[in-house]
């Protein structure tokens, strides 16, 4: 049994917050740079170049890539042989998030109550923490801060099994078109297929933690990812929704077994400032 203190986790989370907010991941940077060759609109190309310049400035000046430093969404792989001491994982991550946000000059974007109070918690907590139990004695924490503009464009549809591949392509493409410029395209499209209503929504989110452009392990879904990407990029939406041939940088699909009557599909979009960082304790 490996013992890890709440303090150790919180300290590591602070560093994770800083890296996620300031350093555009290499995979996202490379996907953006590669998209310059695919983008046909001159205005759109200048927007993509500005996004790359922005990433360089953020890194050099140690400032947030985007002012919407997001909801702190964590995906945790918790080894069965790990024992957390001094509190819960949620407490450890919240403590690290609060400190990380304060020390790194990130924007507090969370309100205490969704409908009535809407008072800023000023700490950017509570964080969203998804836990998956795994074998071994490692604690792996992935952070993907999620902006409100792209999150607001999410969609779930309880498709019929008979809707098939075409139904999935149409629903995802329509969701990206309906989102227009709001989620800050070029986007990364997270798609969850299967499971239940809430499971497919989680899968769509989990898909955004994947390295940009890394294909599904299932060849059939890897092909579908390419089909949807082509469909989305024919929409004309383009960078910032102002027109262009690069609307998405990648499509990632995650799946789960589902009920004989169902084929739920969820879409969760990430902006081009697709921030993520990981660490292992």
């Amino acid at each position, binding site marked *: 049994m490996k013992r890890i203190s709440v303090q150790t986790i919180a300290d590591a989370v602070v560093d994770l917050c800083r890296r996620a907010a300031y350093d555009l991941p290499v995979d996202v940077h490379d996907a953006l740079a590669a998209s310059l060759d695919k983008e046909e609109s001159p205005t759109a190309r200048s927007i993509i170049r500005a996004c790359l310049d922005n990433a360089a400035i953020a890194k050099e000046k140690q400032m947030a890539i985007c002012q919407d430093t997001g909801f702190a969404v964590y995906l945790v792989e918790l080894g069965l042989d790990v024992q957390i001491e001094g509190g819960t994982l949620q407490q450890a991550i919240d403590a690290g998030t609060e400190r990380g946000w304060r020390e790194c000059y990130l924007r507090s974007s969370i309100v205490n109550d969704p409908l009535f109070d809407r008072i800023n918690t000023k700490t950017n907590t509570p964080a969203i923490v998804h836990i998956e139990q795994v074998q071994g004695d490692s604690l792996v924490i992935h952070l993907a801060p999620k902006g409100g503009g792209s999150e607001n464009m999410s969609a779930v549809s309880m498709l019929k099994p008979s809707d098939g591949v075409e139904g999935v392509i149409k629903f995802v*493409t329509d969701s990206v078109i309906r989102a227009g410029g709001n989620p800050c395209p070029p986007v990364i499209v997270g798609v969850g297929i299967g499971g239940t209503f809430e499971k497919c929504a989680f899968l769509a989110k989990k898909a955004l933690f994947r390295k940009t452009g890394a294909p599904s392990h299932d060849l059939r879904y890897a092909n579908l990812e390419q089909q949807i990407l082509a469909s989305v990029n024919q929409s004309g939406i383009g960078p910032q929704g102002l027109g262009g041939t690069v609307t998405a940088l990648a499509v990632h699909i995650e799946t789960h077994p589902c009920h004989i009557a169902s084929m739920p599909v969820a879409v969760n979009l990430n*902006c081009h400032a697709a921030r993520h960082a990981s660490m292992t304790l």
Partner: protein
Amino acid sequence: MTVKNISLPVSDRKIIADLSAGDEVLLSGIIYTGRDAAHKRIVALISANEKLPVDLNGQFIYYAGPTPARPGAPSGSIGPTTSGRMDRYAPIVMERTGLCGMIGKGERSREVIDAMIRFGCVYLAAIGGAGALIAQSVVKSECVAYEELGPEAIYKLTVENFPAIVAIDSKGNSLFESGVMRWRKNSA
């Protein structure tokens, strides 16, 4: 394509009328930030015929909520937020304040575009997700109202060469329509 330099506040509405969808602009002068919570309060004051905390006549409002600035820095990251959330407030603000322009990201509703035509306003797109880059054009930033709202407060920004694109001009021409149709390759 030529880049047009605009000084804010604008001295003559003709400057706004001369902007066309697709024009790239560089803004210098004063810009006020304001997003959801500030708009809700401003519209409540307008409805009650009370004085606003800032005079928006001839001004541009920027839908943005910055990150906190580091000590000594004029501004934190400050890119645009989604403008559509301000659509229900924008027409009355244009009608009652003399506002000349809005800066944000994403499309506007038909009602907002109609009000822009009626009151001679322009809508500019700043690059969403380029908050660090845009911050380089901010020379000074001061909170002038609703400080308790944190990032949602109203900040008076002094900017030099703030980059933006005319997304919808004062005649209602929209790059969200013409630009997208120009590059659409299927019938979706």
